[in-house]
């Protein structure tokens, strides 16, 4: 039976759009972070606190992905960021075309740093390049401490890990060292921040890093950029 060559990545269409997004952001001098976690790890609170702390020093925009509602967007907007809400109406991850459309509603010239808050899910978002420069995964002390071993793909594809809700450590059986060990086993170059959005512990270090990311003059000088290459990165360079 005749065969016809296709030789294309299954996600090639997404990667083309991601490259377009990456190009537009680079042209406007905006750094982009794809923020991922399971539900309830504290992505939105982390953004709220980061935006509030960096107000006046770093212009932050947020593309807020949720399955339904604009509750999170309202919280972040109140903290002082430009926000666009995407509702996926059931889809378990964001795709690059959603981000491209959301960019229309942002004034990129006035931004230093753009966060894309992905859908709360540790599985599906890992496969979709959104045009980001860096991927940050958030876990927290009220989840099990075996997340990096159970969901290795998302940790392998990230440059940064945030361990949140440190203030609850006395009340839970959570071993942050175990999480660090597991996460570094799947991704030895992962940069790790431990913090509590509630008590503020560790937020200064985290915000200092964000400031550096937002103000880095060249993409190649981004902190933690020597980690594993993000899928689709090559298309942009």
């Amino acid at each position, binding site marked *: *039976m*005749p*065969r*016809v*060559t*296709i*030789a*294309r*990545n*299954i*996600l*090639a*269409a*997404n990667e083309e759009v991601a490259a377009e997004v990456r190009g537009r952001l680079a042209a406007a001098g905006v750094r982009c972070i794809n923020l991922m976690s399971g539900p309830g790890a504290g992505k939105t609170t982390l953004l709220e606190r980061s935006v509030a702390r960096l107000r006046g020093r770093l212009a932050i925009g947020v593309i807020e992905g949720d399955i339904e509602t604009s509750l999170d967007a309202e919280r972040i907007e109140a903290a002082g960021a430009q926000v666009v809400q995407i509702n996926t109406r059931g*889809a*378990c*991850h964001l*795709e690059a075309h959603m981000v491209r459309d959301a960019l229309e509603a942002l004034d990129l010239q006035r931004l230093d740093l753009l966060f894309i808050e992905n859908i709360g*899910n540790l*599985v*599906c978002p*890992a*496969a*979709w390049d959104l045009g980001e420069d860096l991927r940050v995964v958030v876990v927290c002390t009220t989840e099990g401490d075996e997340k990096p*071993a159970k969901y*290795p*793909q998302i*940790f*392998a594809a990230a440059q940064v890990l945030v361990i949140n809700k440190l203030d609850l450590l006395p009340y839970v059986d959570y071993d942050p060292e175990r999480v660090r060990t597991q996460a570094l*086993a*799947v991704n*030895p*170059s992962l940069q790790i921040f431990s913090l509590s959005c509630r008590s503020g512990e560790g937020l200064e270090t985290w915000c200092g890093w964000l400031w550096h990311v937002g103000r880095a003059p060249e993409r190649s000088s981004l902190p933690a950029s020597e980690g*594993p290459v993000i*899928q689709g990165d090559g298309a942009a360079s």
Partner: protein
Amino acid sequence: MHELALAQSIIEVVETRAEECGVRQVRAVHLRVGEASGVLVEALQAAFTMLASLSPVLAEARLAIEVTPHRAWCEPCASSFAVEDFIARCPACGTWSTRILSGTELQILDMEVGADNEQGGQEQENNG
């Protein structure tokens, strides 16, 4: 969970290629999927069958999936090894490897087309 989106993407790529080549009926689509790509092969098969049934060109098509093992290269040992649980550490010498050889692919290789199609084989060299 995201296999439905992957199946949709596969169908769009194959439909476009079929139209380019004047193919009326696709018999099979060959994929290479890495064991560490996060794809559940059974779920992808089910999603493909469901969506392909809605496509005139793909209604009869089956999905043939070649699963590649997750392997990495150890520079000091000059040999490859199987990556277990995403931990790319050489079992022989303990060195961490960043050179992944296989296991993360998500590729559409080619398609088998009906013998009644005009072109087919001659498109082999065009790797779009």
